[in-house]
């Protein structure tokens, strides 16, 4: 056992201390007029421009709990005797290989199960990478940055923005969150985090309409300076982006924000609702991230926690898909659902499962290739740590999404793209 401290291994803080703003700040403050911004956003809002939405299930979602392999039911019941009674999952018409956790049938039109039955979902059981790292932190970072190395760097979709994005429009890449997802961390181009589009403006107290334009110009002035260090420069850049976001979102009114379908209660669903509204507007939004709620790190109480988490996920995602379809924009939105790793096939006798390999992901949308797109790991052939075999590398999926959905050269974005395989994900 290596007991020595590896000085080359970076810490979490070092990794995250670098990030946005590490490169040049390209966008010139002079151009940051309302008209200039709207123009830039509109220019990017090509009517058919595809939008990629990332939905992250934090904690390591259990593949076997979410998608019980009906083909391997005997072995499954041996491994999971303490967790899931063999008859408690929802079978599918025309699908004998696997069933769904019953909570995945929650929501409009039968939830995620309904979406699958209607050809809207392509499942990727067994997704991971070779020699998986069972640390939440390490694995999450690999997925977020699109590379399995502990190096500094921008997010995988942040790099896509840096190559293909606009220097003016932060709404091209939006985290529906208070914080920017590390997936969208760029080296130079602007991004946004949005929770409430109606309260996004940079507004100063006591200005009224008379002084507000002066205040606006003042903010622009103090956020257009150069700074010597990346962190201080990033603070400048985000201050400028914040004003841009407020201006770009100001024209988005109640009518656009009103959803044509009923969403369930809860922050996750409300964020998806807002996202659908933003996608429907000519704002040039191309990539977005949402984090799902609930406890996927089910070391104990898995039956309760997974049911709750998957139910909320299913209700939110099915409303989101119905909304996109009702708005007539579903053909240009692809949703990618993922988690940082899977869980151990054998349950742990605390009523839960420990960190494992071979996780779960899916693509969702009217143009997603539907069905079961990867081999389900064989429960009789576990690896040396009693974990599931990995049947598809997430970098293959990323490369396929970049090429087939965003129409980009994956090798410019992902260092490992040339050596990664491809899956057909888009039709």
């Amino acid at each position: 056992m290596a007991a020595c401290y590896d000085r080359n291994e970076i810490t979490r803080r070092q990794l995250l201390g670098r990030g946005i703003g590490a490169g040049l700040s390209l966008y010139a403050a002079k151009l940051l007029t309302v008209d200039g911004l709207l123009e830039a956003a509109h220019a990017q809002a090509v009517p058919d421009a595809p939008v990629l939405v990332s939905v992250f299930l934090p904690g390591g979602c259990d593949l076997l709990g979410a998608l019980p392999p009906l083909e391997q039911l005997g072995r499954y019941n041996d491994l999971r005797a303490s967790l899931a009674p063999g008859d408690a999952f929802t079978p599918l018409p025309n699908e004998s290989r696997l069933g769904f956790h019953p909570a995945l049938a929650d929501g409009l039109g039968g939830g995620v199960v309904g979406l699958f039955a209607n050809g809207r979902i392509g499942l990727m059981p067994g997704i991971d990478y070779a020699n998986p790292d069972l640390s939440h932190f390490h694995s999450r970072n690999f997925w977020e940055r699109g590379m399995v190395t502990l190096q500094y760097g921008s997010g995988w979709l942040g790099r896509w923005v840096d190559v293909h994005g606009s220097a003016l429009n932060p709404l091209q890449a939006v985290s529906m969150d208070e914080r920017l997802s590390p997936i969208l961390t760029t080296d130079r181009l602007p991004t946004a985090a949005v929770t409430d589009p109606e309260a996004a403006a940079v507004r100063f107290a006591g200005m009224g309409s008379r002084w507000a334009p002066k205040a606006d110009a003042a903010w622009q002035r103090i956020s257009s300076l150069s700074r010597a260090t990346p962190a201080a420069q990033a603070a400048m850049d985000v201050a400028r982006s914040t004003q841009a976001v407020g201006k770009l979102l100001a024209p988005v009114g109640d009518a656009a924000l009103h959803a044509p379908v009923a969403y369930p209660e809860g922050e996750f669903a409300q964020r998806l609702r807002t996202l659908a509204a933003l996608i429907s507007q000519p704002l040039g939004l191309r990539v977005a991230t949402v984090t799902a709620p609930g406890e996927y790190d089910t070391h104990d109480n898995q039956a309760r926690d997974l049911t709750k988490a998957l139910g909320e996920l299913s209700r939110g995602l099915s409303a989101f898909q119905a909304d996109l379809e009702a708005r007539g924009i579903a053909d240009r939105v692809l949703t990618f659902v993922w988690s940082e790793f899977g869980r151990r096939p054998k349950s742990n006798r605390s009523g839960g499962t420990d960190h494992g390999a071979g996780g779960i992901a899916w693509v969702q949308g009217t143009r997603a290739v539907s069905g079961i797109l990867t081999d389900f790991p064989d429960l009789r052939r576990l690896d040396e740590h009693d974990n599931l075999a990995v049947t598809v590398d997430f970098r293959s999926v990323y490369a396929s999404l970049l090429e087939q959905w965003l129409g980009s050269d994956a090798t410019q974005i992902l260092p490992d793209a040339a050596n990664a395989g491809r899956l057909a994900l888009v039709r």
Partner: protein
Amino acid sequence: MAWTEQHVRRLFWRAGFGATPQEARHYARMGQAAALRFLLDGDGQGEFSDIPPARIHGQPLDPVNEPGHEVLWWLDRMVRSRRPLVEKMTLFWHDHFATANQDTPLMLAQNQMFRERALDTFLRLLEGVMHDPAIQLYLSLAGSRKTAPNENFARELMELFTLGSGYDETDVREMSRALTGWRKRRANGITTTYWDPNAHDDGVKTIFGQTGPYGPDDVIVLVTQHPAHAPFIVGKLWSFFVTEPLDPATQAALVATYRASGSSIKAVVGQILAHPALYARLHSPDMIKAPVVHVAGVLRTTQTPITLRRYSPLMTAMGQRLFRPPSVAGWDWGTAWLSTNAMQARVELAGALVSVGSKTLRVRSKRAAADWTPREHVDAALETMGRPWIAHDTRAALLGVARDFHGSGPTAESAQALQRLLCQLVVSGPDAVVH
């Protein structure tokens, strides 16, 4: 090393929540040693400063029962404590041993334990953590028993709390066995934990190649004696206070201090706070303030008591909700705090402060006359807001703002609006984000 008000401000921001103008003056005169002594040991002049305690709608806080009040209760301590380093380290440990989703009394008890042991030895602190019901419940240690050991706590103990690397899956599994024995129970309406010797596996375990009938107290010794531990923990402490990378010589010196002092947190932190790297680039700071540090700092340096519940949701909007870290890995720090949503909330905070947050600031932020020069305007705003640091070019930009504000000619009304705007800009602009 010269010792100026700038040095005091840097030290007090990094080690606490900013320096008031009085503190900056006082400790610039007294010297670095006195400033460090105050931070590390206090000055024996009581627990809190003269800022009145938090009151919401005229009532004292009820952290146990009123949602959001637990956040304000801790924020209030950050604002008023005469031991700012203790509160800052309590925040460090809250992030390091991140715990969430437990009943408020348990979270507050954990918080108090962090505070009491914030500068103690790491051994004592880890002992407190090991016996803390909130983290036992959060990481499935409670309920991990001989017949069913749960790996969660052991894995995070090594990866996130003590080592970072230098262990393997066997160590995880064996350590899990050594840590079995705590169980859950309901008491006084909340779920808590207790030790049940019958649930503990007292068999022989092999951890880091050493063999014995280990239990929780042995595990604390094993992980803190592991060669990876001291470099891991001093490195994490360093990057909490300093943005410069930790060079090998300094790391070796900190490790030596840590080991020689029997894992004294105070000794290591004291050495870091005295290190010249902490005072690098005094005129271009580059550490991003965490949201609670920003909010507590603005309140503390403007001597503003907490009277608004709204500070709690504003910190959430800035990306940090105390007692609810996003995962056991805590929050992502540094530039990860920056987002357009967070920046908008920082502006909103400034507006709240000069309108409803403080009568003093409301009055003072409007105090201006039509004949004030731009320089008088900028200086008055800085004075009102507790003299926050701004860069030279920011000052020039604000002077420009003041010159161009009035249009056809200054009036009493335009002067007041300008003054109020400048007050908000100096505590919400990009310079206020860094320290």
